[in-house]
């Protein structure tokens, strides 16, 4: 696996709607820009050999980087694969929709739910939004949130940008009704 660049983002929100928060709402992202393992090979039917090679290594690289910039336990998470314009979306999906990528993250944060994901094929500098949901209960509305990412020079046409996102809490001042308690 060829890694060109690693990107980490941290956003600490201290006030929302003009009201300060009792503790910052922190969301972070860790991403790797890698050479698309299937670039230049035409249509590859069986993606599994390269998935088996790259997905565990991506998790090894990204999970500790992401957790190291957060000062509290992870409560919500999500993932992303942005494929350069020469590749197939299937290439990005292959790298993130595998237990070899998702399980190390889930295990590190004691999560049990599916990781919401964004998959997209785009030019370098594209803006993408990573959906995040609660790590043990996907119906917890307070933790539904989205984190925007842009890397100016990635992905190149033959690259894939793979990333993980995590939040230490829900939305700032979340105050929606619980799932199942809406008036009918």
């Amino acid at each position, binding site marked *: 696996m060829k890694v060109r660049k690693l990107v980490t983002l941290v956003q600490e929100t201290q006030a929302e709607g*003009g009201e300060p928060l009792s503790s910052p709402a922190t969301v972070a992202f860790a991403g790797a820009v890698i050479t698309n393992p299937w670039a230049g090979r035409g249509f590859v039917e069986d993606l599994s050999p390269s998935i088996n090679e790259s997905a565990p290594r991506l998790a090894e690289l990204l999970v500790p980087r992401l957790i190291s910039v957060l000062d509290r336990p992870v409560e919500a998470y999500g993932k992303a694969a942005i494929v350069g314009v020469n590749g197939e979306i299937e290439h990005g999906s292959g790298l993130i929709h595998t237990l070899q990528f998702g399980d190390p993250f889930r295990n590190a944060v004691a999560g049990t739910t599916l990781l919401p994901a964004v998959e997209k094929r785009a030019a370098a500098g594209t803006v993408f939004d990573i959906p995040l949901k609660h790590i043990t209960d996907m119906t917890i509305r307070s933790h539904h949130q989205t984190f925007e990412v842009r*890397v100016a020079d990635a992905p190149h046409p033959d690259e894939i940008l793979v990333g993980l996102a995590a939040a230490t809490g829900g939305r700032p001042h979340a105050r929606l009704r619980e799932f199942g308690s809406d008036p009918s």
Partner: protein
Amino acid sequence: MADSFTTMQDTVVDCRASGTATERASEVPARALLSRVEDIEQEYGQSVPGLLRRIVVAAVVKNPWVGRRVDDLSPGVESMHRELAPALIQRLVSHAGGKERIEAFGKGVIVGIGGEVEHGAALIHTPHLGDLFRMAVEGTSIIAFGELRAEAGAVLSIPMWHTRAAATRSHYQAAEVHIPDAPRPDEIVVALAASTGPRPFARIGDRLTD
């Protein structure tokens, strides 16, 4: 819109003036703080030796002068940076893995469209930020900078150069700051940037070799 600006301003003032440290997010007068770290492992297919890390830290603050003509900006600058400058510098140095790793630096500001460019200039061209930053990384150069007045989501490229030898071409480089929802018209984004090394495979010579 004007009402929410007033609320924001009042709240920021209030949350600094009362309560204990545990009752509020922090002393920093910012709506949000952002950090961006890029580690460049390869350039044009070649592995980059050592750790080449570019860091940008930014704070979204209320423009203390918006909507009125203020001749003396210095009280607002001093008040803002009592907490803001140390918070930004601490985050930057921490992401770099220590002050000794920082070889190039820069600063930038994006003023929301309700403010004067001078408001942003005041917040970055001041000893209350610049001198502190320079001292923190043991630099001697003046600090490269970029200024912009723009809508939320604008991209500002922050130029950097060597912390002790500004004319060293290998260290001319830039890093971007981009925050989707900032600055609002009455806000200012204040940013610092640093790099732990030169451009990857810098090879354009120098003033002495031209």
